[in-house]
């Protein structure tokens, strides 16, 4: 199956894949969906092809087999490691059971996964991710182990911070008598949060109607086809020129009906899906917002705890207690942790500000393309329909 470049998404750094010693490139594609397994455990596997001249990679070309949960693994790793960045959204996990293996759904998902991977590969930071390299290169057995490990009940704490995050927050909350989580009070950021949350609602509604519009095209096509058939039969009662006219009407109705069905499919792929993608992207930003809130809270809590420890240390220093050494070590650790937390938080803020600019620009472009495709499709459809009926009209006039 030929790789279909997503029509509405910027692909990025995929020029001249074969010119030697040229600019660095990383070209990825997701193709060839294949159904594997049986019954409830059936799933779709995809071929992921990487073409690159980057030295971090094992070679100019690599092909691996991946499934949806592998993509989820990659997505989750990126989300954990690249806080502040808007990680490209994955297509939704759950699908109604009976649609899970329809050709339409499989193709839509393949396309969405391809878009996801391409977006990661063309993101200036994310493309350098080690997890991405892992995803693109390790063999299936290794991938399976990684995936199972990650999805297991007990996640291995990635950093020291994990411990502090869980325990310290509880302690300091009790100590400080705070029940509510600490939140940033930044008017601009508040505005952004409000914007993101509202935007999701509006987009979801637009997406809902565009999905319905796809259905309407199909329904109109079907009813026109049925109507044409009935008219043909009616014509057979009439005979001579009138009967012929009915018959021609029936034939034309069928032509128009087919055209409508085609357009329904186009609408789905070129408009509804991009809208859905937009919704998912906004949801991904919401997740980043949550992460930033976490980072902020951590930073605040650590700062508080550090202050307490400082006070305690001073006390111990004065009394020349033998606990002083221990307390000093602890304090230094905390100080370091606090600095790191602050740095992480500041990074996130900076990154988010950059990302939001990029996001808005990208989305204007994406939606512009989607509008263009929609309008083009509708104009073409209408013109085809007009042509079809017009030719019939000429015939009818001579009746």
């Amino acid at each position, binding site marked *: 199956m030929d790789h279909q470049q997503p029509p509405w998404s910027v692909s990025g750094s995929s020029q001249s894949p074969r010119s030697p010693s040229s600019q660095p490139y990383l070209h990825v594609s997701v193709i060839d969906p294949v159904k594997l397994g049986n019954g409830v455990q059936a799933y779709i596997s995809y071929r992921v092809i990487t073409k690159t001249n980057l030295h971090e990679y094992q070679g100019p070309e690599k092909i691996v087999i991946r499934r949806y949960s592998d993509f989820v693994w990659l997505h989750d790793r990126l989300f954990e490691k690249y806080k502040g960045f808007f990680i490209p959204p994955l297509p939704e996990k759950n699908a109604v059971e009976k649609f899970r293996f329809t050709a339409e759904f499989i193709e839509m998902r393949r396309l969405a996964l391809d878009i996801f991977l391409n977006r990661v590969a063309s993101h200036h930071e994310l493309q350098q991710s080690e997890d991405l390299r892992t995803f693109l290169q390790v063999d299936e057995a290794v991938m399976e182990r990684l995936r199972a490990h990650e999805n297991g009940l007990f996640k291995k704490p990635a950093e020291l911070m994990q411990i502090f995050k869980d325990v310290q927050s509880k302690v300091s909350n009790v100590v400080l008598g705070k029940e509510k989580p600490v939140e940033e009070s930044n008017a601009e950021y508040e*505005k*952004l949060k*409000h*914007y993101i949350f*509202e935007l999701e609602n*509006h987009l979801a*509604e*637009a997406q*809902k*109607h*565009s999905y319905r*519009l796809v259905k*309407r*095209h199909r*329904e*109109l096509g*079907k*009813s*026109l086809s*049925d*109507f044409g*058939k*009935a*008219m043909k*039969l*009616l014509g*057979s*009662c*009439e005979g001579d020129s*009138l009967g012929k*006219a*009915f018959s021609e*009407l029936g034939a034309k109705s069928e032509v128009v009906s087919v055209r409508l069905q085609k357009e329904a499919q186009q609408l789905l792929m070129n408009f509804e899906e991009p809208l859905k993608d937009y919704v998912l992207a906004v949801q991904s930003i919401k997740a980043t917002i949550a992460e930033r809130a976490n980072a902020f809270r951590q930073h605040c809590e650590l700062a508080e705890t550090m202050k307490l420890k400082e006070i305690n240390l001073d006390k111990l220093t004065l009394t020349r207690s033998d606990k002083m050494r221990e307390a000093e070590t602890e304090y230094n650790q905390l100080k370091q942790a606090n600095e790191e937390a602050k740095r992480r938080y500041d990074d996130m803020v900076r990154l988010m500000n950059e990302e939001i*600019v990029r996001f*808005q*620009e990208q*989305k*204007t*472009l994406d*939606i*512009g*393309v989607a*509008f*263009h*495709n*929609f*309008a*083009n499709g*509708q*104009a073409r459809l209408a*013109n085809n*329909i*007009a042509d079809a*009926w*017009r030719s*019939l*009209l000429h015939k*009818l*006039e001579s*009746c």
Partner: protein
Amino acid sequence: MMGAENKGHDHEEAHLYASKEEMESLVLDKHPLSGNSNGNSNFFSSYRSAMSSSLPDSHHPLSPSAASAITTDSDPLLSPPPYPELHGPSSHDNSYIKPPNYADFIFTPFDGEDNKGLESPSPSSANSPTSFSRSSSSNSEYIRITVSNPQKEQETTNSIVPGGNTYFTYLITTRTNIPEFGAAEFSVRRRFRDVVTLSDRLAESYRGFFIPPRPDKNVVESQVMQKQEFVEQRRVALEKYLRRLSEHPMIKKSDELKVFLQIQGKLPLPTSTDVASRMLDGAVKLPKQLLGDGTVVPHEVVQPAKGGRDLLRLFKELKQSMVNDWSGSRPPVVEEDKEFLEKKDKMHDLEQQLSSSSQQAESLVKAQQDMGETMGELGLAFIKLTKFENEEAVFNSQRARALDMKNFATAAVKASRFYRELNLHTVKHLDTLHGYLGLMLSVHSAFTDRSSALLTVQTLLTELASLQMRSEKLEAASSKVFGGDKTRIRKMEELKETMRVTEDAKSVAIREYERIKENNRTELERLDKERHTDFLSMLKGFVASQVGYAEKIANVWGRVAEETSGYVKESI
């Protein structure tokens, strides 16, 4: 709902020059067609209510009245721009399709909600546009009937309950140049019961003709429909019915119709309750008839036995029909007209196909309606997004996007309107199918008239045969007695008298049967011819409106495609 439609009419109309905010409310307003399918499983009635609530009868842009009545107070969503389409042979003369751009010629331009030149006045006004009578007669006679001004009235007499029964009357105005009417314009007030009477009397007088079916009595107290709605529906239906009557070449000249349209006060036609009481009279007479005292009144056989006074005749004909069906012996006269039998089969086929076409037309109309609605809702969603992005904009990219969304939304709302306008036209044209389906009832009645007349003939022939046998028996018996038998001779004379009367009745019945056969034949010819014309018209109209609106929709989206073409170049 019709009341609501009237209000909605003005409301929507005020929004014709809408800004984008007002477009929201415009799209959200319940369109008369959209609100009408109240889960009503009877597709015929819901369809008809949808259709009748929004459209005047066929109107012709070249007709003198329409040309001068250029009102600007009509909303294209309620009444379509004038569509040059006619019932009747005269439509052949007008080449109403001028290539290449049907959109411009047929439909008034819709850009920027410009409603200049929209000609059709509101359908709910008292002066609804006329239907062009399908007049094929050379002297261009016409008759225009309008039904308007429903009024509530009180039942004054015989009301046991104080404040008793109320009913509605309708003002029926006729304009005509037919000399037999003796006046050019006149009005009467009639109630629905009068229409039923008219219809029943016509059925009796015009046996064998395809008489347009009258509107349903519709006794059902629909909770969903308000009285106002019901009355309006009925008014429209009555108007349609009377117009159809006035288009029928024979009926338009009938006394019954004339009397109905002209005579003030109480309708001077015997009501059907009077007819029913005849049955009671008949029950009183029966014992006398059985004792041999009843005489056949020859001219009564021009009426079917059913509904008449003569119960005995009813029984005899019933017996005859059973003999016909079960005895295996050929009745004295049968339907021999091969051509007729073929035609009858054809009518049966036609009816079936009409029924299924009618249903599919319903579905098509609904699908077009849904398409328009959803397109509108999509547009609306993007209008909201536009507003939102503009209010919250921090970056220029957002403002640019908001502008794109606005253009897109505007186009979607326009397209939505086009779909709904198209649907009004589609409904109007495809209504021809429903109309002819309804006419099948008339055809059935006419064929029934024929078969019951035949049955009367058969019965009388059988009767005569048996009378003849009795006569011969009597003769044989009395000849054996010399000098004659006074009683027998008297009996024979009575018998001869009965036979003479029955013979007369038989002649009348045969004449009637032949007359009805002829009526059937001419009506079938007329039906075929008119149906041919009307169907062709329907097909042309349907297709032309599809072309016209497809062109308009293509224009709207073509512009958006152009405006956004920059994005595609950028992203390659």
